[in-house]
């Protein structure tokens, strides 16, 4: 399964970037989301994956003894997911605002702030 996950991760990164390069604000956001998911999956996979053994201590036990999934990456991803949610919500709204102001989805038209003279 790792191999397939690796492919998926690569695909997530690739598609995220491809979408970011598409000039469209909406696609940009989607690209960022894809990229974020890619990073999360990467953390997950690189923490090494274990099937069906969540890091939850049995009601009768006092510690995890057998094989169990590494809880650290999970905690990291949880944090990362939530943070990305915050950032993504903001980005989505930003795009909405930007469209309202500029009336275009075309990022190429948002270049006045880079001009030398203004």
């Amino acid at each position: 399964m790792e191999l397939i996950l690796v492919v998926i991760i690569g695909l997530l990164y690739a598609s995220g970037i491809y979408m970011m390069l598409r000039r469209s604000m909406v696609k940009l956001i989607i690209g960022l989301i894809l990229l974020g998911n890619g990073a999360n999956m990467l953390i997950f996979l690189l923490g090494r994956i274990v099937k069906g053994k969540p890091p939850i201590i049995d009601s009768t036990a006092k510690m995890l003894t057998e094989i169990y999934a590494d809880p650290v990456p999970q905690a990291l991803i949880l944090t990362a997911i939530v943070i990305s949610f915050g950032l993504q919500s903001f980005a989505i709204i930003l795009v909405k605002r930007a469209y309202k102001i500029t009336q275009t989805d075309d990022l190429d038209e948002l270049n006045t702030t880079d001009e030398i003279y203004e």
Partner: protein
Amino acid sequence: MILAILSGFILAGCTPFISKFIKGKGSLLLPLLPFGLFVYFISYLKEIGEGQTFKFSYEWVPSYGINFGFHLDGLAMLFALLITGVGTLVFTYTTSYLKGHQYLDRFFGYLSMFMASMLGLVLSDNIITLFIFWELTSISSFFLIGFNNDDPKSRKSALLALSITGLGGLFLLAGMVLLGFVGGTYQFQELLSQSNLIQDHASYGWIVGLIFIGAFTKSAQFPFHFWLPGAMKAPTPVSTYLHSATMVKAGIYLLARFTPLLGGTPEWNTTLIIVGAITMVYAAVHSIFRIDMKGILAYSTISALGILVFLIGLGTEASLLAAGVFILVHALYKATLFLITGIVDHETGTRDVTVLSGLSKVLMPVAVAAGLAALSNAGAPPFFGFIGKDLIYEATLAYGNWAVVLTIAAIVTNVCLLFAGLLAGFKPFVGPLPSNYAALHLPHPTMWVPPLILAGLGLVFGLFPSLIEGVLVQPVFSSMVIEGAPVHIKLWHGFNLVLGLSLLTLTLGVVLYMILKPSSLLFSKTLKFEMIAPQTLFGIFGKFFNAFARFWTGLFQNGYLRNYVITILGFLTILLAYRLYQGVNLYIDTAQLTSLTIYEVTVAIMMIVAIIFTVFSRSRLVAVASLGVMGYSICLIFLFYSAPDLAMTQFSIDTLTVILFVLVIYNLPKYKNFSSKAVRLRDAVLSIFFGSLIAILTLEVLAEPLNRETSIFYAESAYLLAKGKNVVNVILVDFRGFDTMVEITVLVIAAIGVFSLLKLRLKSIEKE
């Protein structure tokens, strides 16, 4: 000693607060400061004459070997006296020249700042401190040149001067630091003892080169000379003080000072001779075609500076002596001429020598001063200038194989300079007085007395060279030539070749004056040569540089986000690929991989297809829905691989994201395809390449063993120490609770951001 230097800065710092006082009667008190300092330095004159030197050291940055170490020897003394002496006169002169000027206070502020910096420069023993003062003179000069800041030309000149001297200064800094690095200290006196080591060092060439650039820019040597004529936009006292008597000589000072340390090598001498010679001839020739008194004086100053560089470059005892004397000679007559120019300008409103004439009839004392200065400049006996010129010819004549060439160059220069001197100091005062000048009155004595004093000194020192021979010239010489023979300067050497040359010069100059009448026509003709002048080349370079800046900035900061992203990712991809290729053996550890099951394959297929669908879908909503599918697939993957908390969170957040999108997309435009096929192909290639790199990297990392110490600790102590059984949750609220704290803060900020983005509408009438 430090007080002597600081006093100027303190005065400068005070000016904004005592501006009323300065603008009133107080201005007359200001010259007391340079005068006091002058007297202070004079008090050391005797000991200096006896060969003593004085050291003053004040800690500043001991950890980096930088201090206010001051060293008062002959050379420093000469400059200190020039600075304070000419300073006194210039300060005095200014009180009248700029009387009632709105910003007199500022002017004095800058002037005293300059004086202090200049003093610091010549007295510093620490080469970094020296550099600091050096830069301060540049910046004071900037403010002074731009003093008439309403005038765009004035601003432009100030900027030009600062550019050239500032750039030179930076090279000088590099040179100083390199010198300090090679010599292991920043103390000049300590460096002096390591002269041989430094001269043999591989970086010697760099040191010399860098210091040269600094000196040449400051002292307006060809091809950096062109800022100086522009600097004449400054009020006359400034031209007098900075741009003829003192600041421009800082470069000379530097070269003289470093001669015993770095001099005596072909690199040093040859460069200086060539640059000096070119400058002196080039500027001298230029000066004779000018019609603006200040312009004439500016070019003749450049030429004189060239002579000095040239003399230092010759490096013989004779030439160094000549240099030492000529510094003083030039300061005296050139300052006079400038001050006079100021008076003329002040009174008549013009500096055009083609218009001016006969002024001696109304401005007699001024004319006297001018005449004296012109004669000293001409090198006519018995003026101090005569001695100076003698020494120069002596030096060139003694210079081995090249003596003839060098002497001819010196003669040409001197002839032109003589002509220039006459033009500025003689021509305006003789001949008929135009009627519109008939009513002119002699200005306040504070204006005409200073030039008279300076010019007078030129005569006095000429007549009685012994006055300064022992106390000043000898120590100056000793500073440059450590083990030189005792020097003697005198007016009369008897009839010899040198005298002949002097006379020849005099004659040729006068003849030239007879033949060549200044005219604006001629002047404008000479302007044509500026096509190939350095300033034009610099201008072209500047334009080119600007165009390059435009090109470069446009290349990167082109306004297109996609280009930015592609640059960043391209950069990352190339580096990653290179590093992977360079240091990683591709290797997959299949043994550690888990097997596949049908549900995993299903989820994987669904996910992959969903991703592709998201990317290629033509409808935003379908893309969002596919994104949802993808999210849910991830959720399942989390679940399969033992992360129920993750699965829950992913699912909830995914749903919320979909809601957000759906709510927002409703007033977003429909997808459009903005890019061409080729662009899409390029982007696809880059993306896939990058994705593959990440995938490869992941595989490689998977093959490495993982240190499980942390996770084992959590597994063992989650319940026993932290009283929780869901280890992930325990990590979130306890072991790594800080992360969570921050993370909810992120959420809060995002919410506030959304709130303000959507709700806050600044009304255009509301004031900010």
